[in-house]
């Protein structure tokens, strides 16, 4: 247990160890610790931001949903209106068409009647001529009596 040069050696060794520790051990570990602290802080901030974003998105989605519902209701109402309108219009059109057809039909019928009447008149005239001829026992010259006949026709 003598005091000797060991203490000098120990002090020198001490200095070298401290120097090594300061140069190659302390900085990387502290850097890693700082980096981790930063990463954790960033992660927490990101989580916070994510939560906020989620809330906003939820709010927005509710908004969009509400809007869509409104629009759908509007569209349905519009459709309903259009349907009634179309229906009414169709009714009107149909009525008009029916009337038109009826008028046309009536006209045709009128024509048909007059044509039939004409034919009838002709036939009656022919019958009358034939009857007269038979009665007169001779051939009546239709051409000679044309005037008479047409007067007759007119009277029928």
């Amino acid at each position, binding site marked *: 247990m003598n005091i*000797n040069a*060991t203490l000098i050696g*120990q002090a020198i060794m001490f200095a070298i160890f*401290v120097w*090594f*520790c300061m140069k190659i*051990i302390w900085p990387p570990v502290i850097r890693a*610790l700082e980096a981790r602290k930063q*990463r954790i802080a960033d992660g927490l901030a990101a989580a916070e931001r994510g939560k906020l974003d989620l809330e906003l998105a939820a709010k927005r989605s509710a908004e969009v949903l509400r809007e869509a519902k409104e629009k759908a209701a509007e569209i349905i109402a519009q459709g309903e209106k259009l349907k009634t309108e179309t229906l009414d219009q169709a009714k009107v059109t149909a009525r008009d068409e029916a009337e038109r057809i009826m008028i046309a039909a009536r006209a045709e019928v009128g024509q048909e009647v007059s044509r039939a009447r004409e034919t009838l008149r002709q036939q009656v005239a022919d019958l009358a001529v034939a009857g007269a001829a038979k009665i007169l026992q001779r051939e009546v010259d239709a051409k000679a009596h044309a005037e008479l006949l047409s007067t007759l026709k007119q009277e029928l």
Partner: protein
Amino acid sequence: MATGALTSTEYIKHHLQNLTCGLQDGGFHCAHSAAEAKEMGFWAINVDTLGMSLVLGLFFLFLFRYVAKKATSGVPGGLQNFVEVMIEFIDNSVRGSFTGRNPLVAPLALTIFIWIFLMNLMDLVPIDFIPLAMQAMGLSHFKLVPTTDPNATIGLALGVFILVLFYSFKMKGVGGFIGELTLHPFCSFCLPVKFSLSPGNLLRILALIILIPVNFILEFVNLIAKPVSLALRLFGNMYAGEMIFILLALMGGAWAGASIANVTLFGSQVLLSLAWGIFHILIITLQAFIFMTLTIVYLDMAHQEHH
């Protein structure tokens, strides 16, 4: 346990003797007895102390360097976790007691804590294992615990003391440091001294002349007490702990055949060594921590400018 040929006194003395080697009679050789070691004087070295310090210091450096190289900011592994815990613990201690800014202090504290802890830890190795192994290899003495050698603790305290002096001069300037040594704790009223012969001024000069030596003695003792207390506290605690292990080992060492007394002694040794060893775990950690904390505090004082 002692070898049969040794008396208790010889056994204890053998355990307390370092492997002192030095240049003597024109050659390098190691002392075989305490007297021989003493004869070598100052220019000899305790090979065991330096060797164990070196091995343990390198162990610390390589272990921590290995981790530092692979340190990631991701999820740390087991070893990195341990190193990080140590470094954060030291960093917090330094932040807590060191008010200045100096990148040296925290690594210094880390080195002190781990290195002294490892050196103290050697105290828990059964005291005869290594000396007997070394004896088998031809070395007459081997003290495993460097901190039970006052040279080691004084060397450490000397390193700290040099840093304290260096930063005192650097932070306060030569004048500030001398002022701190001579104008404290008394005589803060002595300044400023003017070149006049008014009674108040003369009184102040007189007070200065009387109080400067008083202050210097007080402050100088205060200054010197720092390294001395650092060195002797660590040495004293470790030396005492080692001594108790040696004394406990003597109980079983008295073995002289299977008698009830011998068995009882042997059993007591085992139990007491175990108890003391468990208690000693606390002491070695505490001593390393105290050395580190006081180093931080002393350096903090060196950095503070008082007036």
